[in-house]
């Protein structure tokens, strides 16, 4: 089953506005509550990929957790204009620890 879906991005204006030029649906949110609502709306309307700035990703943990068990939408943290805060890498590390019991993949660096 194939299905077309839009790609959205949520974050503060200075970080996400530029994504408008490559055709993403841009939503300017800074409040975690509003962002959570936005995520729920987007998921309900069939958006497949939602990028979120790391700051909001951290604050909307509960909403994001809800969609973790489903294949879509993919909620992906991206660094904002202030640079990466390592949240995505940390969640990747948590995945490895969950699956393998110990972080044996990323210990070399």
């Amino acid at each position, binding site marked *: *089953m*194939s*299905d*077309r*879906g*839009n*790609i959205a991005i949520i974050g503060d204006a*200075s*970080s996400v*506005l*530029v*994504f*408008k*030029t*490559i*055709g*993403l*649906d841009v939503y300017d949110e800074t409040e975690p509550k509003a962002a959570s609502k936005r995520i729920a709306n987007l998921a309900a309307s069939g958006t*497949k*990929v939602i*990028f979120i700035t790391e700051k909001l990703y951290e604050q909307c943990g509960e909403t994001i957790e809800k969609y*973790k*068990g489903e*294949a*879509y939408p*993919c909620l*992906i943290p*991206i*660094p*904002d*204009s202030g*640079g*990466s805060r390592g949240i*995505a*890498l940390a969640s*990747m590390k948590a*995945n*490895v620890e*969950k*699956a*393998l019991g110990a972080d044996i*993949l*990323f210990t070399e660096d």
Partner: protein
Amino acid sequence: MAMMQIKPTRMELNNLKKRRSVAVRGHKLMKDKRDEMVRRFIGYVRRNKELRVLAEKKLSEAMHAFVLATSSMGSDEVMEALCYPARAASASAELTQVLSVPIPKLTIEKTQDFSYPYGFATTGSELDMAVRLLSELLPVLIELAEVEKIATRLADEIEKTRRRVNALEYVMIPQFEAGIRSIKMKLDENERGNLTRLMKTKDMLKNKQS
């Protein structure tokens, strides 16, 4: 371990044996599933890390360029330039399965060749640079989204499967074995009791005759 409450009958013994053999087979299958998922997970998570590092590097470059553009052009002009609608990017999303775990498969839909969605009269080259970087980055971001989701889903599923494997290996199967053993002992004991009784009766009969 808490013993199961079982009646020491042959029927119960047969039932338990059947259940044990199902559990053993299930355990083997589940273990194979877990091993295969771990193997695939490692591949995905490696790719995830590569993509993540690449994407973060490129994104910060692009955002840096955008910040420069904003400062050199003024935020109002940047806003104005970005107000024009660009062609909407969309991805075709499929659902595939890896070991019966539903996972996403995303492919970016290529519409037309890249073009700047604004006029060049009021915009600076920094903005062009940021936009160009981002448009190159979009396929990477989409792949990152796919791989990251797959890795998360697999990690969850591996954890679940591991729990099941452990429950079978350390709880269910030992329980069945203990049950089977206790029924066998009980039955043997009955058998021995019966035999002794028979021998005793035979002796008594013999004594009576002689």
